[in-house]
Structure formats: structure tokens, C-alpha cells
């Protein structure tokens, strides 16, 4: 009705989103602890596997892949889990406890921009992580994926990262005490990662069925498929991931608190 506006609001929101992502990045890279755990841990693990399995040949134990070919995919997946699920849950829980979330709430920054900023930041960190692991894998003889594979890799990464971000915020919403966050996060993740074949391929049908319905294995499988097999989209796995992401988002939206002190 009123034709006079200061700036097209949508453009302003986009500028604000970019602004927010930049400061999330800055906050992340400045904190030595978060950078260390997110990057150093997966890179060290894949380097150790690289030394152990250098020059390995395809084997049925690794579903017809070389050991390192298998691990490049699963360790890349677990690094995304670290960057999105673990980091985000811990960061959000501690920001809430410190009152930083409430302080954000005190500004005109819309919450959707805040969360989209966090998500974009986590996806970027996840992508850097995956590239690092592919790089280390290449040093030990696992070829870099060809161009034809990148669409499936990109879709899998973004969908997986988004789903695990939603789950991270959901867990942060359920935790009351920030000191407990790292323990809770690991307690949930640790068994899941093992059941999902991240460190050892699983050949038990029952475990495969159960883990296949949980979020980690579908992500492993989708990434394995995109990196090594025909290079197609693992639609079934992606659908399971998306369902988990949606469930996480519902819990996050319903239970999220900005205030360190509940009403």
C-alpha cells in the first residue's frame, strides 16, 4: 500500500543472512578448540587408516571397495556429523547457558536468519571437512571423485548436513545443562557410529536393518554411493535422512528456548 520503502526488505534480509554467516565463521575459526575437534580429529583418523591400508586391494569385506576407499567415505560422513550435529548441539547449549542466545533475541535479527546462518555455516565447515578428507585419501591413493559424481555428492552433503544440524539443535533443546552437552552428544553418537559401520563394515543383517532406520547409516551409504558406486542418488537413504531431519526440526522448533532460565 505504501510504495515508499527504505530498501527492499528481502534484499536486506539476504544481506543480513550473509552478515550473520560471516560472523559465525569468524567466531568458529577464532575458537581453537572447535576448529581442532572438527578438523584435526577426522583428518588424523583418515591419515592413520591411510598408513594402515595403503595400497589395499578391493575386498568383499569392504563391499568390493579398497579399505581406504571405504573409509574415505565413512570418515567424511563422520566429519560432517562432527561439524553439524556435535558442534552445533554443544555451541547452542553453551550459548544459551551464557545468555548469548537471549542477547541475540534482544536484537531485531529474525530467528530464521539466525538459524539459517548457523546452518549455512555448518554446511560450509562440513564441505571443507569432506574436501580435506578426500585430499588426504588421495595422498594415499584413493582417486578424487570425477566431475560426474559431484551433483550426487553435493546433494547428499547438503541434505545430510541439514538433517544433522536439525538433530543437533533438537538435542540442544532437550539438554538443560550446557556442561552435560558434550557427554550427551557423544553418548548418542558413539554407539550409532559403530552400528552404522563407520569404523568397521557391518555384515549382520539385523544390525544393518536397525541401523538403516537410524540417521547415521543412511548418510554413510548415500555418501559411499555418491563417491564410489555408480555415482547415483541413493534415494531411499536420502529419504530416511530427510525424515530424521524433519523430526529433529519439529523437536527443535517445539522445544527451543532462548532464555537460560525457564519460565
Amino acid at each position: 500500500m505504501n510504495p515508499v520503502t527504505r530498501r527492499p526488505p528481502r534484499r536486506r534480509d539476504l544481506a543480513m543472512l550473509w552478515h550473520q554467516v560471516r560472523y559465525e565463521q569468524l567466531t568458529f575459526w577464532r575458537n581453537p578448540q572447535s576448529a581442532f575437534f572438527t578438523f584435526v580429529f577426522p583428518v588424523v583418523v583418515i591419515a592413520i587408516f591411510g598408513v594402515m591400508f595403503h595400497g589395499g586391494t578391493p575386498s568383499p569385506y569392504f563391499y568390493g571397495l579398497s579399505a581406504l576407499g571405504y573409509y574415505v567415505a565413512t570418515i567424511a560422513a563422520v566429519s560432517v556429523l562432527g561439524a553439524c550435529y556435535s558442534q552445533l548441539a554443544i555451541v547452542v547449549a553453551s550459548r544459551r547457558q551464557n545468555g548469548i542466545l537471549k542477547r541475540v533475541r534482544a536484537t531485531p535479527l529474525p530467528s530464521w536468519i539466525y538459524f539459517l546462518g548457523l546452518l549455512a555455516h555448518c554446511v560450509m565447515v562440513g564441505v571443507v571437512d569432506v574436501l580435506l578428507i578426500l585430499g588426504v585419501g588421495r595422498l594415499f591413493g584413493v582417486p578424487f571423485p570425477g566431475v560426474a559424481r559431484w551433483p550426487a555428492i553435493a546433494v547428499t552433503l547438503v541434505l545430510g548436513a541439514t538433517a544433522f544440524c536439525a538433530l543437533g539443535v533438537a538435542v540442544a533443546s532437550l539438554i538443560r545443562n550446557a556442561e552435560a552437552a558434550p557427554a550427551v552428544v557423544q553418548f548418542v553418537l558413539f554407539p550409532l557410529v559403530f552400528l552404522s559401520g563407520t569404523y568397521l563394515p557391518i555384515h549382520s543383517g539385523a544390525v544393518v536393518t536397525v541401523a538403516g532406520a537410524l540417521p547415521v547409516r543412511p548418510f554413510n551409504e548415500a555418501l559411499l554411493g555418491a563417491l564410489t558406486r555408480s555415482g547415483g542418488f541413493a534415494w531411499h537413504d536420502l529419504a530416511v535422512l530427510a525424515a530424521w531431519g524433519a523430526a529433529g526440526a519439529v523437536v527443535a522448533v517445539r522445544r527451543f528456548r532462548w532464555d537460560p532460565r525457564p519460565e
Partner: protein
Amino acid sequence: MSGEPAVVVADLRKSYGPVRAVRGVGFRVARGEIFALLGPNGAGKSTTLEILEGFRARDAGRAEVLGLDPGDRGAARELRERIGLVLQDIAVEPYLTVRETVTRDAGYYRAPRDVDEVIGLVGLTGQERRKVRTLSGGQKRRLDLALGVVGDPELLFLDEPTTGFDPNARRGAWRLVRELRDTGTTVLLTTHSMQEAQALADRVAVLAGGRIVAEGTPDDLGGRDTAGARIRFALPPGCAAADLPVAAEVRGAQVTVRTAEPTGTLHRLTGWALQRGTALVGLTVERPTLEDVYLDLTGPDTAHDTPRGTPPDTAHETAEGGAR
């Protein structure tokens, strides 16, 4: 526009379960004034403030901030553009620098203040490149204040802004708040320091037990300006209480005279003493201090008017956050 008040509160109510933290609070804050909500811990100050800031939902009553309803989610962004908040807890990212922190928040506003100007305003010039985690507590608090004003707010909320400050830092903060008021910002603050209310506020409302028990300027609060003065001196040797020319309370050798007209009373007393060739040793004239009024208003007597069934002390403790 400038004629309408910045804040209107009427019959505001908020309970936490059985605890009635705010029980019918009402006041108005005019544009361009510093208004203080004064009261002991647990009186309902912070709950009232948090309702006006949009952090808590009210149970009943009217609340209007710059003509907007703070409980209306649709108006939240517009309201946040026009108000500034400084909360009780220091909450700043430890790994960013001072300048980065202020620049980040400036980016959230439609028409922010200049970042360097704001850093200068809170006295952090020269510290721009320091990481927040290396700042002292007082400096972090000033950075918090910078975040409150960077959006160039029409109305600034300060929740116990100088708690934990040393006297110097406190005076600096007061100066800053007055400067903001002088440039047209309305300020609504909570405090449990009478000194702060007296030094800073144009008007004060005293809260106790979830109600406003007095409202006025720091000078006339609780009838302080018209309340009787107290004249005290030592009973001259050889005099009895009955010898005094005015009604007095004598305890031992200490005489206390309460009077609504200190000038006349004092004249009669000194005239009487001179006539008898004696002196009024230790002569003082006092008006009740704001502290006297405050203690009167919020003292244990007031707690009795809490309705039965709500133990006042424990109840208010839980009501206003176990953080302190």
C-alpha cells in the same frame, strides 16, 4: 508522537505457578526521561522489565512499549528495531574483538549508530582490537551497553546496569546514561541501589512484593519533601525535658524534635538556648533520606500485606531467578 508516553503499564500481572511475582503494577514512562524501578531482590522488577522487553508473557493487564504490544510476536521485529536492551548477565562471544562484536550487532539494525562513535561513547576507544575474553568484567559490561545502544534506540532498558561496578565505573555508567537521555533516549532501568536511583532517575517507582508502593521524583518520593525534619541535639546540662520550648522526645541526654516547620522551630530552640546562656551541643537538622523512605516502604512491615498462603521471602526468591 512525542506527546504519548514511551511506556504504559496498567494492572500488570504475572504468576509463576502459585507465586504471584507481579500483582497489578502500573506506571507510565514519559519520552526523554530516566525512569527507575527500585526495589529489593524478588520485588518483581525484572519480571516487569522482561514482560516489557517481550521475553515473558503477561497473565493480565496492559503493556505498551512505544505504542506496540511487547507480547505481540508480529510486532517483535519492529519493536526490537526501536528499543535497546542491556540484560543482567554479560553475554558476549569471547573470541571476537570489541570492534567485531559491535559491528556484528550494528548489522542487525535498520539505521545503526556509527560503530566507532558507540565504542567511544562507552569508553572503550583504544580497546577495539582486543578479544572480548581478555577484557575485565567492567569492560565487558560496557561492551554490553554498547550493544544496547548501537541500534540508536528510542527507548533503552537497563536491568541492574551497574551491579558489580566499582564506584568509578558506576559514575562513568551514570554519566553515559545521562548523556543518552540528553540526546533524547528514554531510559527504563531497574536497580536495588537507592544511590543509583537518586543520582540517575528523573522519576522512581518503588516495588515491593509485586506491587508499586510509591512513585515520584527522587526528591519527593514517599512524601520526602514534605515529611517532617528531625532536629537533634544534646540536652543542655541542668535542663529538664519540660524546660524545652517545643515538644520533644528525650532519651537520656539526646533530644529529638520532629517538626514540619524546621525554620521556626529551630529559631525558637536557638533563641531559648541563647537566652539561657547555653548551647545546643551536637545540633543537626535532617530530612529523611531516600534510604529511610525506601526502607520504610520495602521493610518487613510491607511484607505483611502479602496475602496469606504465599510466604513472601521464599516465594519471591524463586520468582526472580536463582541467578543472583
